[in-house]
C-alpha cells in the first residue's frame, strides 16, 4: 500500500475492484465504514455481487479479465471531460515528456506496441526525446502530438463506452456512473483510493491492470494524499515483509536486483542497476544503490573478506531466465528438479493447474515439507486416486512453530513492521522456521568444511552470529533481536558524517547514512531505521495520533524511515508548498520544517524537487516503458476466453506472455480451451472469510469448518435453469485440465453478461479446500482426523498454467469451464 489501513477512513471515494475486501480483509472495513460514515462513496466492481458489493453505493459487474477495458474507459472519460488535476499531472508526472516519434500504439499497429519479435518487445521506440543536455524534451502545455498526455488520449480514444460495454458486459449507464463518481476526486482537496488484491493481479495482464488504475490515480492527483494512493491488500499477514526480504527469485532484500552471471564484478553489477539522470532537481534516490549493496554484503559476510569477494560468493542467475513458480513446477514436472523445500506453503492446492503440480511432486527425489500440519503437498503420494507404490519421492515433514509460538516481526500491507511476542511454546518437536534454517545451515556448513566443494566459501564464510553456539558449533536458539539489528545495520568503523561521529558497533540511525565503502552493514536498507540506538522501533505501542489524520507515527514503524504515506511530496502545490487538501494535510511547512508525516525530503517548498524520488527523473510514469508488455495498458483477452476475437484489436491475448500449452510448446497437460464450445462458461476463483488460502490452517478449526464446510460453486439462476441444477445440488465442474465436484449455490449475485450481443455466463469457486481434511480419504494409523470434516478439493484443479507477462503470477481469476449436474 502506498497509504495505510487507517488512512482508508480519509477517502472521499473508495473503489474496490479486484478484491472482496469485506470478506478477505474484514478489518479493512472498519476504515471503509468510517469513510462511508463521513460521506465517502464506496464503489464495488466485481463479476460477482459480493459481501463488499452489499455495502457499496454503486455496484458494477464486469466479466473477469476485462479490467483494462473498464479502466481504459475511465481514463478516456477523465480526459474527455477534462477532469484531471492539471497542476499535479504537469508537475509530478511524465505527461509532459515527448516520446520517440517512431513509437507506435496498438490502435495503429494491429493491437501491438512497436518492436515485438516473437513474444518479446524491443523497447527502442519506447523512449523519450532528449535535449542537447541530455534532459527529456517536454511540452508543459501538453499539446505536442508526441507528448505522453496526447498519446494517452489517442490510445484510450478507442475505449468508448460502447466498446468497453461490449467487452466487459457492464451496462453503459453503470460505467458512466462509476466513472463520474470516481472522477469527482480529481478536484484538488478530494481523495479517491483503490483497494485491490488478486482480482487485479492473477491475470496474464495483471501488472497492467494495476498500471491502468495507477494512471487514473495520477490523472486525478490521488497519489501521496491522505485517503488516496494505490493500495494492494496483501493476502497474508507478513507477505509484504517476505517480499521486502526477497522471497522472490529476482530480488535481494530491499528490492536490490538479483545479480546475473554476466555481472562478474561488484562494479559491473552496481553500474547495471544504478540509474543516472540529467534532470536538475531530481533526487534519483536509487543513485545510492552501491551503498545498499555494500551494506548488504557486509551483513552477509562481515568484515572478513573484501566487498568484491563477498559479491563473488552471491549466487547468480542466468540473464533472461525466469525462476518463478510456473517455471519451477514445469521443470519439476519434466523431471529436471531433484529436491524441493515446500516451506510454509501448500503447493498441491495453491498452485495453478493442481493436477500438473501434484504430478510434478512425484518426479522429485526428495521433498521437505515445513509446515504446521501435514497437508495435500506433504501427502501428495497418498492422495485419493494415487498409487503410493508408484511414487519414489522421499518426503520429510518438519513441523514448525506458528506465529504465536515465536517472537519476531511481521510487516503488513501498510508496510508497518510490528513486533510480536511469543505467547506459548511450540508443541512437540516443532521449531521456529529460523531455527530450522539455522540447523540446516550449520549442517551444510560442516559438510562443506569436511568435504569441500565448489564455492564452499559462499557457505563457510557466511556471517551467522544470531545466538550462542552449542558444543557442535551450531546455533540452536536464535536471538531474533540480533537478526533485527543486523537487518537495520551497524557502523563497522568509527565514522564522522556531517560533523556527527558514529562509533563502531553502533546501529545506523537511517539509510541516508549507509556507505558504499564497506564501513556499514545493513541486511535490508529499507529497514535501516527500524532498530536503532533508541531501541526496537517496531515494538513501539504509542497509539496517540499527533497528525489528526490517523498517521499514528509513534505506533510500531513503517518503511521507509517511518513514512506512512509514500510520495507525500506530491500532496502539496509544487510552488507554494500548500497542501492540496488543507483539511487533511499529510505534510505542512511550518516556516522552517515540514511537519506531519516524514517528508520525501527536507528541502523547503518551491525547491523544484520532484516527489517520486525512486524514479530517476522524479516523476510518476504515466508512460511506463519499464514493463514487458507495453508503456500503456491495453486490453487483451484472458488466455482462455469465451470470445472468438478481441473486440478492440486483432491481437487476442497478451503477446508478451510465456506459453507452455500445446500451441506454444506442446505439452498435453498444459492444454488450453478458448472460444471452445465444450467449455463455454467463464470461471473465477475467490477466498472466503472463514478459510485462509488453501485452508491448511483453517480447515482443521472446527468453528470455521462448521461455517464453511464444503467447496461450492456460485451459479446464476439463468445458468442453473439451462443446466437443470437446483440450489444445493452437487455439480461437476470441468476445465480442460481437471474437474471438481462442488455444491451449487444458485444466486442472483451472479448475472449473465451480455458480451457483444451474446449471453456469456460466469461462475465462481472458492479455492480454500483440499482433500486432506475430507471424510472419504484414508486415514492411516497415527493420522490426525479433523474434528469436523470439510468436503471437496482445490479449485486450482481447474486453473490454467499461464502467467502474467511481467510477474508470472498465474491467471487463476479468468478461465473457461463447463458444468453439469453431478452424475448427469
Amino acid at each position: 500500500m502506498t497509504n495505510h489501513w487507517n488512512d482508508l477512513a480519509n477517502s472521499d471515494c473508495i473503489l474496490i475492484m479486484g478484491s472482496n475486501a469485506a470478506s478477505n480483509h474484514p478489518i479493512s472495513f472498519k476504515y471503509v465504514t468510517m469513510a462511508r460514515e463521513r460521506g465517502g462513496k464506496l464503489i464495488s466492481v466485481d463479476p460477482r455481487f459480493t459481501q463488499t458489493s452489499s455495502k457499496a453505493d454503486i455496484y458494477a459487474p464486469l466479466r473477469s479479465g476485462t479490467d483494462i477495458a473498464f479502466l481504459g474507459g475511465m481514463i478516456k472519460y477523465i480526459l474527455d471531460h477534462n477532469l484531471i488535476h492539471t497542476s499535479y499531472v504537469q508537475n509530478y508526472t511524465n505527461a509532459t515528456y515527448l516520446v520517440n516519434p517512431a513509437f507506435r500504439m496498438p490502435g495503429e499497429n494491429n493491437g501491438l506496441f512497436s518492436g515485438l519479435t516473437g513474444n518479446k518487445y524491443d523497447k527502442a521506440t519506447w523512449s523519450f526525446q532528449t535535449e542537447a543536455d541530455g534532459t527529456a524534451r517536454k511540452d508543459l502545455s501538453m499539446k505536442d502530438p508526441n507528448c505522453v498526455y496526447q498519446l494517452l488520449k489517442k490510445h484510450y480514444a478507442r475505449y468508448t463506452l460502447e466498446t468497453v460495454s461490449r467487452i466487459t458486459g457492464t451496462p453503459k449507464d453503470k460505467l458512466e456512473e462509476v466513472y463520474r463518481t470516481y472522477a469527482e476526486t480529481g478536484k484538488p482537496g478530494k481523495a479517491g483510493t483503490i483497494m485491490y488484491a488478486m482480482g487485479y493481479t492473477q491475470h496474464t495482464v495483471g501488472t497492467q491492470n494495476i498500471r491502468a488504475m495507477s494512471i487514473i490515480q495520477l490523472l486525478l492527483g490521488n497519489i501521496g494524499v491522505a485517503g488516496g494512493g494505490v493500495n494492494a491488500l496483501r493476502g497474508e499477514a507478513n507477505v509484504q515483509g517476505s517480499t521486502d526480504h526477497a522471497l522472490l527469485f529476482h530480488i535481494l532484500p530491499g528490492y536490490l536486483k538479483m545479480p546475473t552471471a554476466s555481472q562478474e564484478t561488484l562494479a559491473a553489477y552496481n553500474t547495471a542497476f544504478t540509474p543516472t539522470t540529467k534532470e536538475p532537481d531530481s533526487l534519483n534516490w536509487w543513485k545510492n544503490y552501491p551503498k545498499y549493496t555494500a551494506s548488504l554484503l557486509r551483513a552477509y559476510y562481515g568484515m572478513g573478506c573484501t566487498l568484491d569477494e563477498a559479491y563473488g560468493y552471491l549466487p547468480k542467475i542466468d540473464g533472461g531466465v525466469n525462476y518463478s513458480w510456473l517455471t519451477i513446477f514445469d521443470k519439476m514436472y519434466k523431471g529436471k528438479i531433484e529436491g524441493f523445500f515446500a516451506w510454509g506453503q501448500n503447493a498441491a492446492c495453491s498452485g495453478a493447474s493442481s493436477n500438473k503440480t501434484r504430478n510434478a511432486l512425484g518426479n522429485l527425489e526428495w521433498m521437505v515439507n515445513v509446515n504446521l500440519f501435514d497437508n495435500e503437498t506433504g501427502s501428495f503420494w497418498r492422495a485419493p486416486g494415487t498409487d503410493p507404490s508408484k511414487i519414489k519421492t522421499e518426503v520429510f515433514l518438519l513441523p514448525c512453530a506458528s506465529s504465536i509460538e515465536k517472537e519476531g516481526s511481521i510487516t503488513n500491507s501498510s508496510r508497518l513492521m510490528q513486533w510480536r511476542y511469543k505467547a506459548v511454546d511450540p508443541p512437540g518437536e516443532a521449531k521456529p522456521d529460523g531455527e530450522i534454517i539455522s540447523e540446516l545451515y550449520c549442517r551444510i556448513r560442516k559438510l562443506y568444511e569436511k568435504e569441500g566443494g565448489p564455492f564452499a566459501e559462499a557457505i563457510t564464510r557466511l556471517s551467522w552470529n544470531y545466538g550462542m553456539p552449542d558444543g557442535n558449533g551450531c546455533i540452536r536458539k536464535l536471538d531474533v533481536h540480533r537478526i533485527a539489528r543486523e537487518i537495520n545495520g551497524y557502523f563497522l568503523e568509527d565514522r564522522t558524517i556531517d560533523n556527527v561521529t558514529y562509533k563502531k558497533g553502533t546501529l545506523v540511525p537511517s539509510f541516508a547514512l549507509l556507505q558504499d565503502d564497506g564501513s556499514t552493514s545493513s541486511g535490508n536498507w529499507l529497514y535501516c531505521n527500524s532498530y536503532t540506538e533508541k531501541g526496537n522501533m517496531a515494538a513501539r505501542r504509542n497509539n496517540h495520533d499527533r497528525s489528526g489524520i490517523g498517521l499514528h507515527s509513534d505506533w510500531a514503524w513503517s518503511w521507509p524511515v517511518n513514512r506512512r504515506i509514500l510520495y507525500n511530496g506530491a500532496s502539496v502545490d509544487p510552488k507554494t508548498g500548500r497542501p492540496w487538501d488543507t483539511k487533511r494535510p499529510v505534510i505542512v511547512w511550518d516556516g522552517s520544517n515540514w511537519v506531519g508525516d516524514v517528508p520525501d525530503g527536507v528541502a523547503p517548498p518551491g525547491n523544484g524537487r520532484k516527489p517520486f524520488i525512486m524514479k530517476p527523473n522524479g516523476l510518476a510514469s504515466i508512460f511506463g516503458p519499464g514493463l514487458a508488455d507495453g508503456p500503456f495498458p491495453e486490453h487483451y483477452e484472458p488466455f482462455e476466453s469465451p470470445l472468438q476475437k478481441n473486440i478492440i484489436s486483432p491481437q487476442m491475448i497478451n503477446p508478451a506472455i510465456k506459453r507452455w500449452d500445446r500451441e506454444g510448446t506442446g505439452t498435453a497437460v498444459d492444454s488450453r480451451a478458448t472460444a471452445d464450445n465444450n467449455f463455454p462458461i467463464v470461471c473465477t476463483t475467490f477466498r472466503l472469510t472463514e478459510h485462509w488460502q488453501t485452508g491448511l490452517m483453517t480447515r482443521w478449526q472446527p468453528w470455521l469448518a462448521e461455517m464453511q464446510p464444503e467447496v461450492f460453486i456460485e451459479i446464476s439462476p439463468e445458468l442453473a435453469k439451462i443446466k437443470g441444477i437446483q440450489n444445493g445440488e452437487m455439480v461437476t465442474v470441468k476445465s480442460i485440465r481437471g474437474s471438481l465436484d462442488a455444491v451449487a449455490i444458485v444466486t442472483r449475485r451472479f448475472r449473465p453478461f451480455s458480451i457483444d450481443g451474446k449471453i456469456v455466463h460466469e461462475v465462481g469457486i472458492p479455492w480454500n479446500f483440499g482433500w486432506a481434511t475430507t471424510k472419504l480419504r484414508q486415514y492411516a494409523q497415527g493420522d490426525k482426523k479433523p474434528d469436523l470434516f470439510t468436503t471437496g478439493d482445490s479449485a486450482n484443479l481447474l486453473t490454467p498454467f499461464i502467467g502474467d507477462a511481467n510477474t508470472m503470477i498465474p491467471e487463476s481469476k479468468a478461465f473457461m469451464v463447463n458444468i453439469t449436474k453431478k452424475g448427469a
Partner: protein
Amino acid sequence: MARKIKLFDATKCTGCRACQLACKQWNNLPAKQTENRGSYQNPEKLSPTTWALIRFDEVDSGVNGVKWLFRHEACMHCTDAACVKVCSTGALYKTEYGTVALDSGKCNGCKECVSACPFGIPQYDPSTQKVYKCDMCLSRLDNGLEPACVKACPTGALRFGDEDEIMSAARERVAELDGGGYLYGDKFVGGTGMLYILQEKPTLYSHLPTAPSVPTSVIVWKDWLKPLSLIAPGGVLAAAFLHYLIKGPKVVEESSLDKKGDA
C-alpha cells in the same frame, strides 16, 4: 444501574461472522458437522450450541439487481420477556443490566420458554433436557466487558452500552441514513435489549417477526390469573383449564418463522 443494550446496525455488517465465532469461543460451544445447503448460512439455525447466527438473505431488486442482507440473530433481551414470565423455576431471569440471563442449574426442561419466545431464541437440548440461549455474555458484563460478539465485530456493526446512549445513537444513525435504515425493536415487547438498524424493511429478512408480541396466553396466564391463584386456591385448576383452552397443547412453532428461504 442503567440498562445495557446491544445495537446491531445491518448497514455496517459485512457478514464476516466474527460475532458468530466469538460467541462460540467465549461460551465454549462446540461445532457440529455441517454441510453446504446452497447457502453461506451455517449452521442452518440457532441450536443449543449456536447462540448467535448470521442469517444471509438474498432479495431481488430491480431487473438485474440483488440485495444481500445479513442479520445477527441472537437473544433480543426483551423488556417484557415472555420467557422470563413463563419460566416456573427462575432459571430465566432479568439481570441488573436489564438483560435476560439463564441459570442452567435451575432449568427443568419444561420448554415453556421455547413456545413463548416470539423470536424463536431458546433452544432445547434433549440430551441434557435443558434450554440454552445467549445471555449477553453475563460473565463478561460482570467483569466490565462488552459481550464477545461486540468485541469481535470489526466494522462497528455491533455496539453495546447504556440504553440512553445506544438508543440516541441508533436514532441518530437512522436519521443519517435518511430512509436507508429501519429501527427495529423499540416499539414492541416493551422494547428489546438488542436493537436493530435494518438495511431494508423487516419483511425482507427471514425468520424475523414484523410485529412480535408476548403471546396472549402468557399474558393471561402469568399477568392476570397467576396472581389470582395466590388469593383463591381453587383458581389454579380453573386457570390451568383456561390456559389449555386458550393455547392448546404445547407446540413449538418453528415453522411459522421459517417461511422464507435462506440464501
